[in-house]
């Protein structure tokens, strides 16, 4: 069972990260200017001294810090992420409601960015020096420099406002009561622009990396051997070169998963998409810190999950049992 040790090590790392995030959350609450209670209360009822005293008791704020940290970690482990006094709901419930919508954007965006990036980078390298290569390189350079939120707004301007082809915001057409396939299609048309926006930046990054990786591999000895064996150019490029060139892209995708998820805050704001990114934005506006911190923690969990996924993909491509980091 030689996969057991690497699996345990990766799991161990993941758990360490989550604990670290929880500790950071805890630290932020106590390091913020002002009374930790006001942070926890959000900006709801912060003027009521009796209410604050009640909160102080409830959160055991008079106990030593270590004890507080311990009970905080314990509650996180049981998915108790606190309570939003603004919305009068447990934070976890609010997040659980919105998480699927974010995943509807994040998972396709991740796959499009990774697979699309590899494909375009490989094509650019395969036809190195041609107009296709120049076009792909220029396009990825441009996307690499554009802010996500601006791309989103421009797409809305272009496709919704001017052309009217796609809906500008929301998860599905309001007031409709569709089910099954028509509903999924409706959601899909609403998701199209947000997914493209979310994928855009990372797509550019992976395209550039895939292209330079493929170009570098072109000069490798084993590629020379493959040509010398009389293999067809298709086989040399797509079987021999690609598999080796893809490894650094997968590694980078894993490291950048956090960035992708973070981008959902911006995308969901622009497209009024009801996910946890939008939730974070609303919490920001309302200074509802427990919700904000809760979202922070949950996105970390999602990122860790993506990391595990990319680690798995890496090991499938490279059976040499070396960890990508």
């Amino acid at each position: 069972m030689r996969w057991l040790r690497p699996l345990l090590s990766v799991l161990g790392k993941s758990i360490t990260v989550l604990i670290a995030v929880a500790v950071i959350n805890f630290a932020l609450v106590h390091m913020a200017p002002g009374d930790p209670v006001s942070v926890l209360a959000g900006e709801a009822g912060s003027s009521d001294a009796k209410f604050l005293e009640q909160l102080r008791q409830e959160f055991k704020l008079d106990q030593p810090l270590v004890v507080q940290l311990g009970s905080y970690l314990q509650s996180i482990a049981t998915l108790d992420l606190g309570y939003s006094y603004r919305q009068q709901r447990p934070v976890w419930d609010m997040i659980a409601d919105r998480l699927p919508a974010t995943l509807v954007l994040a998972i396709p965006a991740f796959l499009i960015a990774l697979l699309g990036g590899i494909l375009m980078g490989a094509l650019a390298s395969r036809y190195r020096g041609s107009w296709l290569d120049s076009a792909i390189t220029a396009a990825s350079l441009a996307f690499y420099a554009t802010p996500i939120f601006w791309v989103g707004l421009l797409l809305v301007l272009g496709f919704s406002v001017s052309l009217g082809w796609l809906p500008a915001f929301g998860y599905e057409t309001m007031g409709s009561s569709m089910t099954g396939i028509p509903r999924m299609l409706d959601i899909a048309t609403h998701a199209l622009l947000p997914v493209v926006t979310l994928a855009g930046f990372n797509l550019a990054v992976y395209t550039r990396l895939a292209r330079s990786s493929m170009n570098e591999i072109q000069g490798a000895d084993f590629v020379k051997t493959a040509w010398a064996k009389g293999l067809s150019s298709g086989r040399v490029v797509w079987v021999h070169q690609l598999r080796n060139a893809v490894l650094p892209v997968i590694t980078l995708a894993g490291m950048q998963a956090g960035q992708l998820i973070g981008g959902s805050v911006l995308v969901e704001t622009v497209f009024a998409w009801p996910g946890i990114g939008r939730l974070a934005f609303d919490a920001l506006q309302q200074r509802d810190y427990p919700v904000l911190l809760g979202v922070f923690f949950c996105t970390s969990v999602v990122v860790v999950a993506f990391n595990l996924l990319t680690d798995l993909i890496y090991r499938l491509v490279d059976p040499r049992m070396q960890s990508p980091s």
Partner: protein
Amino acid sequence: MAPLLQIENLSISLPAGADRALAVDGVSLALNPREIVCVVGESGSGKSTLAHAVLGLLPRGLKIAGGDIRLGGLQLAGMSLGELRKVRGKRIAMVFQEPLSALNPLMRCGRQIGEMLRTHGMRDAVQVDARVAELLVSVGLPDHARIADSYPYQLSGGQRQRVMIAMALALEPDILIADEPTTALDVTTQAQILALIKGIQERKGLAVLFITHDFGVVSEIADRIVVMQGGRVIESGEAQQVLNKPQAAYTQSLLAAVPSFRPPAAGAIPSDALLKVKDLRKTYVRKGKWFGPAQQFPAVKGVSFDIRRGETVGLVGESGSGKSTIGRMLAGLVSADGGEMRLRGADLLAEGAFADPARRRSVQMIFQDPYGSLNPRHTVARILTGGMRRHGMSAGAAMERARELMRMVKLDPSALDRYPHEFSGGQRQRLGFARAIAVTPELIVADEPVSALDVSVQDQVLAMLRQLKQELQLSMLFITHDLRVASQLCDRVIVLKHGEIVEQGATARVLEHPRHEYTRELIAAVPGRSWK
């Protein structure tokens, strides 16, 4: 008999900005059936480029500028990819220098060989497997099932090269082009692979175009020899004739530069010991990951020897023998795990022994890589005077001595304000030597200082070492894997295997009357012993 492969007046151009216009300049060469033609030259001679051009494998930027490459009636120069594919692997096959990087690291070896069979029409999986097994056995890998199932990183260098050869022979080509196939291998493995290639060539009647820089190898296998320099053919002819009666001046000087295996007459052996090493040990420990235990790698397992004042002792072994580790322990770069090391009685293994400047300067080192042993951002003056200034010399005196050192190693003192990249490999090794003797050490540890140099440059640097060693009465520990170099330079030789000394003694005695099995193996593996 018509030649199988005829290269006529071939020229290959280099991209703009290279140090010359043509990598290969008007080269003509013929390869007849059943013969081995060795193309010999130093680095930059164009021999490897020539080999790559035959199958259309030139790297980006290099193009065929003129001439023909004819295979029977076919013109290979400028052939389209589709047509070339019918030749590659089927009629001409190629083997490269570094087997680890020449095999796809992510594909099992059996599949890589099988791929060749499948591409050229064999469909039946059972048939493919059987043929792969047959091929692996024929190259001396009886454990074929395990090898076929392994990834390249799981095999040794010799095994990988055998896999490459098996892959090349899969479709029974008429011609094998081998580009320095044994250069990256240990000398004993090299001997095995050479024997393998020779055996296969005889059995199957292959024609082999063998590229190498090593005349010893050439003397073992060549039927005909082609000598190249600067992209041109300097001389070509029957092996015996070129090796023993070379016509061109370049060939003559190249052959003269190959160190003879026979050691020169031994001089007087000095008596007082400078360095006494007793039972020296070093074990590398790699921490276990997660739940695994820590792994131990004993690199040096209890080694004892002396170095007497004024003598040069050769430390000879293959890779992994621990010779480099011993050298580094002597120079204070690596800590020892046990044993004794005394320089004129002073304990070098004591805590903080090398912190004492007097002790530090007494052992100096010359390194292997001419491109990595000089700080690219420092001027030569700074590199040479740094150590001297450290030990208290004034700036003026140090510069004066630096000029003197440059003259000693036959370099122009006015070059002191240049940077390392402005010097050639051989010149850089001279600078490394100048740096080492700048602080007047008593013992110099030379770690493979000429291994990375072309044979003619190597000859010059060795001559300089011999001369200065005599003049300055230096004691040296000379680490090398090359028995020829050891033979010409060292008074005594220590043979190392897997961290242990198997034999030591006067050079002439060890090389001519070896006592240990391993020493005999090493000596037998040196190519061209009977020739020079």
